């Protein structure tokens, strides 16, 4: 069963990813991105990361892509992009070459080390995944124990991001004071 | 918390009786299909009346057509056959048509008619699916041999709608002279006889022809 789910998730993911890259319309790209994200969430579930799967949907699909769509609609850049025109000369062949090279490197690595994890020590104790606690409890303990400082820093980072976004999108003082309130301005 | 007071108001309505009249156009066999009771003076669909002896009241004088602000009445008079008169007097209404897609029910025609030939029934529940249906000819307007209005298939007649065909006329003298208010001022109608005058407020202290100068406390009817 897991293989089947994996296959479905993989197809969803890759098809979505190709869609993101290939679709001419940014809104379609965003929708394909959502598809990819759902595929990734499925993979997370397959790996027992239920909490992450839910968070992936809430944060990625519910906030990040929505934000993308907001900006697309706000700026009205939802016109289809002319894909045939090449922005910089030689960029596409270069992209192909780089892509192929990357594929080759990664493929070689994976194929040559069929089981990448053999010989590496498996974790135990609090960070072990096969304990009694659910994945949420485990994550909670680790996050607020071992990584407490990192969490604090992320909080600061988020605050800075919000302030930055507000400052960036704020218009110069005009008579019309009220900018349309969106999640970005909150 | 002004936010919450309003909730009591809407909730209270839930326990009041419904004010809806469950009218269903007569297309429904439901017993609850009732019409709202209509006031006497309502301006509804017209009828052409007959005298007690069956003669038509219309004399084809075209006053109604002339006074109609919407020009919705078409009348042509013709001379009576002296042997078989349709109406008393010399002339009668040979053609009488009302276009209900023009009629605004202002009842000036009723006020203008010198013989009370045209009056309005209490029927306001009718509608047409073609323009031709809306033009009522004399046949359709004229009361039948019992003095009752003819009922067209697209009209929704109910008990009593035909009873008060001259309400507005009885309410207007039309001179507005209080001496004449409450006085029977028209001839008898086929099927109804002479209808009593409308019990008017001003006339109560001084019945027909009484002295209007006396100022009194009119009663509450």
């Amino acid at each position, binding site marked *: 069963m897991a293989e089947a789910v994996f296959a479905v998730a993989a197809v969803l993911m890759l098809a979505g990813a190709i869609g*993101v890259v290939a679709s001419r319309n*940014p809104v379609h*790209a965003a929708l394909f991105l959502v598809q990819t994200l759902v595929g990734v969430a499925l993979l997370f579930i397959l790996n027992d990361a239920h909490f992450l799967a839910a968070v*992936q949907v809430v944060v990625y699909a519910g906030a990040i892509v929505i934000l993308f769509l907001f900006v697309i609609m706000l700026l009205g850049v939802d016109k289809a992009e002319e894909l045939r025109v090449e922005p910089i000369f030689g960029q596409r062949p270069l992209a192909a070459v780089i*892509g192929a090279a990357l594929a080759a490197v990664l493929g070689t690595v994976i194929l040559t080390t069929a089981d990448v994890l053999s010989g590496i020590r498996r974790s135990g104790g609090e960070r072990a995944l096969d304990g009694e606690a659910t994945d949420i409890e485990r994550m909670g303990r680790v996050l607020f124990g071992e*990584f407490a400082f990192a969490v604090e820093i992320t909080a600061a980072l988020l605050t800075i991001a919000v302030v930055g*976004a507000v400052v960036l999108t704020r218009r110069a003082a005009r008579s019309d004071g009220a900018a349309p309130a969106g999640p970005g301005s909150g | 918390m002004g936010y919450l007071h309003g909730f009591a108001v809407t909730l209270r309505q839930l326990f009041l009786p419904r004010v809806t009249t469950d009218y269903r156009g007569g297309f429904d066999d439901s017993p609850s299909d009732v019409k709202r009771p209509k006031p006497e003076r309502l301006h509804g669909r017209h009828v052409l009346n007959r005298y007690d002896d069956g003669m038509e009241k219309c004399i084809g004088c075209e006053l109604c057509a002339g006074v109609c602000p919407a020009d919705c009445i078409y009348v042509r008079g013709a001379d009576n056959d002296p042997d078989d008169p349709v109406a008393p007097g010399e002339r009668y209404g040979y053609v009488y048509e009302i276009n209900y897609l023009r009629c605004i029910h202002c009842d000036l025609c009723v006020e203008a008619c010198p013989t009370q030939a045209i009056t309005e029934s209490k029927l306001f529940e009718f509608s047409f699916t073609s323009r031709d249906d809306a033009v009522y000819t004399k046949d359709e307007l004229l009361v039948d041999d019992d003095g009752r209005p003819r009922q067209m298939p697209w009209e929704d007649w109910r008990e009593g709608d035909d009873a008060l065909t001259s309400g507005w006329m009885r309410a207007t003298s039309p001179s507005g002279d209080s001496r004449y208010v409450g006085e029977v001022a028209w001839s008898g109608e086929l099927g109804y006889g002479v209808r009593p005058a409308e019990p008017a407020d001003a006339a109560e202290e001084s019945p027909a022809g009484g002295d209007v100068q006396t100022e009194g406390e009119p009663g509450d009817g």
Partner: protein
Amino acid sequence: MDLSGLTTGWYLALAAALFIIGAVGLLVRRNPLVMFMCVELMLNAVNVTFVALGAGLNDVGGQVAVFFVLVVAATEVVIGLALVVAINRRRAGATTDDVSMLKG
């Protein structure tokens, strides 16, 4: 459940493919918003790797890392999109079409 056929390698291969598609997209596309999306694709590829390796190593650390990646991705998108909006405002080109769309 026995998942003998489904080794961590599969996940890694899948992640690699995703990463490559994202990278190529980043190079090929010129719409800044779509480029951002391609970055998201690459980040997601990394996330898959983290979770799969974490599961393989029986370590919750992989998931914790993904959590941080999510936060960083959100931050990056917020700032990035704010920049796009600000730039678009200055250029005042992209919205004029919509003004004309409003007629009628």
